[in-house]
């Protein structure tokens, strides 16, 4: 499986992921642009650098798990899963449509690659703890990654989970706090301050790191460092900008779940290096199938993947 530790390549992928987020929000529809973009660099680093998984076997027991406790950032995760070929990429453009595979918040039984149902805030981190405990019980080396929102820390359950993770010494758990500083109606520090975060998680017994959540080398280092912590879970307090990468939305609470008009939409795509007039490329760039095709020496691997996921098979005569 293709992985990269090259920050420039990861930055390119993160721009691609953000352009998918913009497309999923679309024009004149509400969509969680702000929080999806603030988490996009972390999610990109997880899917394209750190995590072990197999898109052809979403239920592979030894995979690493990633779940968004802040389920409203689902668009960022959907974009990564689609590029890996967990499901056909055209599903991105059907997000939230009636009967669609991609729901407004993640649903484990509808979407390959999604690990749990989240959306009601505060619960995902507890589920991540349970997963980490279950994997350890089975002696698996899989790790569990989770992203928590800063506004989400208003939920008392976050702190219940933080006790549990520390008490049960869940060192296979790494949680990122997407500290974008904004809740739906303004700044957390003005409206309902729940910090200071590093001090609080240190007091709860966690291994705490603090980074700029858009600095890819820092994210990669944090992911590596987290693995060295023994006997305690890791909390990476990542300082982020809500709406990062979409100039008009950066730091603006109204784009938490706001509406873009056509001018916004086209501006946003152009800012991410995408020509809005160009048709959406439905071929996933990183799907195992695409990779197998590129490395045309592995015919049996290609057949295996095609058998596992006929929905991803290239059109006759087509090339990935």
């Amino acid at each position: 499986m293709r992985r990269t530790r090259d920050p420039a390549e990861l930055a390119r992928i993160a721009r691609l992921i953000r352009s998918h987020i913009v497309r999923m929000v679309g024009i004149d529809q509400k969509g969680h642009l702000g929080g999806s973009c603030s988490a996009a660099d972390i999610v990109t680093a997880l899917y394209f650098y750190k995590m072990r998984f197999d898109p052809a076997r979403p239920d592979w027991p030894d995979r690493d798990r990633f779940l968004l406790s802040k389920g409203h950032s689902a668009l960022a995760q959907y974009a990564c899963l689609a590029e890996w070929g967990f499901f056909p990429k055209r599903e991105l453009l059907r997000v939230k449509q009636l009967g669609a595979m991609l729901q407004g918040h993640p649903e484990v039984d509808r979407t390959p690659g999604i690990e749990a149902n989240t959306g009601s805030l505060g619960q995902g981190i507890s589920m991540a703890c349970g997963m980490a405990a279950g994997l350890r019980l089975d002696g698996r080396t899989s790790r569990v990654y989770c992203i928590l929102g800063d506004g989400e820390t208003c939920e008392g359950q976050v702190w219940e989970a933080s006790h549990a993770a520390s008490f049960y010494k869940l060192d296979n758990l790494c949680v990122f706090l997407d500290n974008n500083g904004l809740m739906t109606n303004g700044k957390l520090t003005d409206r309902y301050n729940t910090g200071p975060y590093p001090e609080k998680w240190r007091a709860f017994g966690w291994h705490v790191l603090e980074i700029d959540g858009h600095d890819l080398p820092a994210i990669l280092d944090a992911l590596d460092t987290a693995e060295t912590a023994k006997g305690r879970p890791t909390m990476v307090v990542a300082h982020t900008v809500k709406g990062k990468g979409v100039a008009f939305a950066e730091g603006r609470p109204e784009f938490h779940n706001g509406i873009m008009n056509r001018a916004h939409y086209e501006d946003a795509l152009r800012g991410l290096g995408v020509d809005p007039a160009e048709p959406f490329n439905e071929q996933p760039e990183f799907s195992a199938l695409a990779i197998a095709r590129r490395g045309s020496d592995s015919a049996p691997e290609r057949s295996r993947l095609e058998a596992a996921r006929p929905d991803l098979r290239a059109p006759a005569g087509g090339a990935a």
Partner: protein
Amino acid sequence: MSATQTVTAMQTASAAETAIRTQPAIRMQNPREVYGRTLVELGHSDPRIVVLEGDLGKSTMTCYFEQEFPDRFFEMGIGEANMTSFAAGLSLTGKVPFTNSFAVFAAGRAYDQIRMGVCIPKLNVKIVGSSAGFSDFGDGSSHQTIDDVAIMRVLPNMTVLVPADANEVRKMAYAAVQHVGPVYIRITRNDMPDVTSEDEPFVIGRPVLIRDGSDVVIFAMGQMVSESVWAAEALELEGISARVVNVSSLKPVDEAALHEYARGMRGIVTAEEHSLIGGLASLISWVFRGRPTPLDSVGVEDRWGQSAHSYAELQQEYGLTASHVAAKVRAVLER
């Protein structure tokens, strides 16, 4: 029947009831004790089973599992929300978690966690609400559960089981493990007389005939099954033949079987230690909607519990005795 006659009849029923209650042949067992022992049996036969406890292990009796399988037992402290979502996470790694607390907290405190984390994705989490109904008589309304069946029944994908005795508790725990998906089991604190036998199979969804009769059918749940049997025995002395059916599977339920049990009956009475809203009365009223058979219910009117020095006082206060069931049967037959 006049008011005076009713009182006299109730007194008669009480005397009969007392006689029956004191019959030495009826074995009493504690459902919590049996539940705790059953978890250990299940733990031996199925390594996927893990148990989570909200600091009440010596009351819910998960303490036996803790002793036997310390690595598969999770003390979650007094944090039912986290316990339930943590269990969801465990189930997503292939475990079969049982969450345990008093029913009021297991179901009520963790409602949203059960709803989003467990029931929407249909996860294999078993939620066991202990000390349900009025059985925690001293602790008052905060600890008494008149609403748990209602809030668990309304959740799509949830299976809701209310054992009528300790034998059923054991069988339900096994059935819950066999069933893939969320299950809620409601367990009382009290010792319960056996109304089912140990070897009779339990099938989720199937109502069970406890005592046959030909005039009226009493559909009962939980503790009220034995009360209904006593009511039926008292009524027999008056020439009224009452059939008692244990509806221990509230959801799903075999509606055709319920209709079969009510066929030819002159009346239907339901009996539950739960609010009349959302529990057995609601279920039976819905199943028999549009039918001409007179139907009435014994249960908790729309009000909260309170402290008392004994369970019996609360049974009396809230109208949940055999006498109340018998009176309701007579009233239905008068219609």
